[in-house]
């Protein structure tokens, strides 16, 4: 099974105002999804305004001239649908999943909030409190999330990827309603949006539904560019978090290029060789053989607008020194650089190929894959993913390990548990 049948069912159109729209026909599916992706995330925030993109995402649910706050969600749910939104470093996405016949309801509501959002000081203060609670929930009461946030903060010195998507608490406190309005004006314009749909519907019908609602909106001005380039790291950086916790963590981050770069696909294979599945090198050693870690993971930021952070993180079984776990991770990385890794690479490529194909089982995963590929590289580039991966040799994987997983490009974080909670 290859990707071509999946890709050949994706169609692209431009609405009269120039907005881009992608649609995929999913035959036999009673459910459909309609999504709007804006090319704005924490990457686009000015210094001192971290968390602004995410707060704007929350404010989009606060009502319009016709709808009370949160009415958007109530109406979608009453029609048997689900709706939510999320913010990443690069994007903000709003989605609805519901019966295909009900999709026009969702499009009408989306149009309403795109054109008549009502922002009041009272709603703003309430939602800011909600976001501050979300930060406490996801980061401040979670030792591991705290460490990963700090790791990014030391790994990046000038690029906006150094601050968290949810924002620093001090920045959140200082955000104003004017900041939100300004951000909306700059980035929430049709020319900066991608309309995405997946449904068992004729593509022409779908595009007509879109055109009749969104085609006449003014496209808006060009959005401000983010031209920051992260300076080359020239030496190891370290951070140590000491707080009450039961389980320690060791995390490492390395600057790497993203999709489009000649090394990107080899880095994707490298991440899988190291920690993709239970037969990966780090899992075998840290979890299976030496029982040092509860688990170990590795992420390569392939689909990223700017170069991101390749991370390795292990949760340490209580009783083992963090230093020993860090040494074990590093030894494995060093071993890989001088080993014959043909078998590892072959396994990783097969795992990645099957994982991608099996992920297409889900409606939401299909949408995520299409949108992220489109906004980072062009959706059609997904077609080359498997063949480019197939071309990656084991020598190339070793070469990128030598090039990027080196001490001068490394940031290391330790979460040191300070006794039982």
């Amino acid at each position, binding site marked *: 099974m290859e990707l071509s049948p999946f890709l050949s069912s994706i169609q692209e159109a431009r609405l009269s105002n120039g907005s881009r729209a992608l649609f995929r026909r999913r035959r036999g*599916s009673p459910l459909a999804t309609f999504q709007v992706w804006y090319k704005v995330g924490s990457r686009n925030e000015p210094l001192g305004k971290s968390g602004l993109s995410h707060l704007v995402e929350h404010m989009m649910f606060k009502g319009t001239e016709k709808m009370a706050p949160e009415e958007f*969600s109530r109406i979608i749910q009453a*029609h048997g649908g689900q709706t939510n939104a999320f913010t990443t470093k690069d994007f903000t996405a709003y989605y609805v999943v519901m019966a295909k016949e009900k999709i026009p309801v969702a499009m009408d509501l989306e149009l309403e909030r795109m054109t008549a959002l009502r922002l009041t000081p009272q709603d703003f203060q309430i939602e800011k409190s909600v976001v501050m609670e979300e930060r406490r929930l996801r980061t401040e*009461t979670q030792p591991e999330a705290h460490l990963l946030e700090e790791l990014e903060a030391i790994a990046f010195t000038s690029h906006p990827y150094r601050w968290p998507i949810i924002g620093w608490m001090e920045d959140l406190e200082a955000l104003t309603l004017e900041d939100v309005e300004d951000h909306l004006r700059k980035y929430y314009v049709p020319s900066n949006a991608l309309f995405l749909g997946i449904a068992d519907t004729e593509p022409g019908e779908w595009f007509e539904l879109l055109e009749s609602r969104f085609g006449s909106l003014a496209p808006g001005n060009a959005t401000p560019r983010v031209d920051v380039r992260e300076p080359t790291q020239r030496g190891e950086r370290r951070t140590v978090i000491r707080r009450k916790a039961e389980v320690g963590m060791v995390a490492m981050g390395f600057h790497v290029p993203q999709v489009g770069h000649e090394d990107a696909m080899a880095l994707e294979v490298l991440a899988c060789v190291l920690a993709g599945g239970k037969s990966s090198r780090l899992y075998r050693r840290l979890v299976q053989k030496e*029982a040092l870690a509860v688990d170990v993971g590795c992420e390569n930021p392939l689909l990223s607008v700017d170069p991101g952070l390749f991370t390795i993180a292990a949760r340490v079984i209580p009783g083992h020194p963090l230093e020993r776990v860090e040494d074990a991770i590093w030894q494995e990385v060093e071993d890989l650089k001088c080993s014959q890794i043909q078998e590892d690479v072959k396994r990783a490529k097969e795992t990645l190929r099957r*994982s991608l194909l099996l992920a297409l089982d889900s409606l939401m995963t299909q949408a995520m894959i299409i949108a992220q590929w489109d906004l980072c590289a062009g959706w059609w580039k997904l077609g080359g993913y498997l063949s480019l991966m197939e071309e990656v040799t084991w020598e190339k994987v070793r070469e990128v390990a030598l090039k990027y997983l080196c001490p001068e490009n490394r940031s290391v974080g330790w979460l040191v548990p300070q006794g039982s909670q």
Partner: protein
Amino acid sequence: MGPGWKLPPLERMEGGYYLSIASPQEELPIVAIRALIPSGSWDDPPGKEGLNFLTAQLLQQGTRKRSAEEIHRKIDSLGGRFHIDANFDYTMVGITVLREDLSEALDLLVEILREPAFPEEEFHKRKRRLLGQIASQKDRPGGVARAAFLEALWGKRGYGHDPKGLEESVQGIEMEDVTEHYRRRLCEGPFIWVACGDVNPEKWWGMLRGAMEGWGHPPSEEESHREDLPPRGKILALDRKIPQATVLMGQRSIDATHPDLFDFLVMNYILGGGGFGSRLVDRIRSKKGMAYSAFSRLEALLRGGIFVCGFQTENSNVREAMAICQEEAERIRVEPVSLRELDEAKGFLVGSFPMKIDSIGSFATNLALWEFYGLGPEYPVRFTSSVTKATVESVMKTAREHLDPHSWVSVVVGDLERTKIEAERI
């Protein structure tokens, strides 16, 4: 039924086990297989809480034919979508593969289930890892609150502990406990097998018949648990110097086959299960900005259920948010819900049902669960008609019969000095 939604064909097999075959959408050459065994943490012997979970996880750590590493390599080569879920009532082993790998995947599952070797070394390593996982849960206020809440409702036995077990009980599990538990509970069945997706029924039946030959028996006699009644109206608290408290409040509730289940689901949607369509979210989040998440939920299980309301909020808001949960639970018992609320709840529950079976994997899992909980493959049809029948009166009657906020057990994990609540410290 949701618009355009049709129940796919299902088939059963004679004997002590069942299988179902269904194809929700045939666009992708993917097959999901599930094997469900009726053994869960409910079956953990006293003092050995976590035994079912540990035994289930050890199934993949070596068989008579293959080492743990060889099994893991095989799983990864099939795409890695393999899981063993050991829950309160059951253990489910599942894998989702490309059509071309169906035969190999079934062989692997059968080998894991029929011929585990339980190597001693793997036992010790997996036990250490499980202790690490349990310790890790303590770093999450939600995990700490959940453990204390379950124990308060049920005692340590039955549903009173997380399926992973407790630190002290897992420490005490020996190799012999694992092999004995496997012999008594996990290798007996009866199994529920489900294959879902792009699969040829005749071929699948042939493969499964061969694999199941001479295997699968009625379950052993279930041991009856002596259950202590939960404390009434207690607030239990754990002091943690963290900026936000986690609160769970609730009571024991109805099981998965209770006749009031559907009215309960409608009532719960309106109270706190319906996100922005619910009263708890409206008051605690949308009007007050006190929490990111506020909810109520029913976990309807085999031998009873768990009803829980919960939220996380800055410590000084705890008293007010707890009072809102109590007020709203009381209000839904004594005041009729509005017609708009009723229609919205029914609209969501009925309309969103197809989401449970949108992917081949989730469809396979749900078919196995419907069979196990006695709901049957006709459950989607009954669900829709039963939810549609709910009325303002039936919702209030169900709330009156099954919600008793004055008896709720509450657990607070937070900075108690700042929450200013009166509670029994645990």
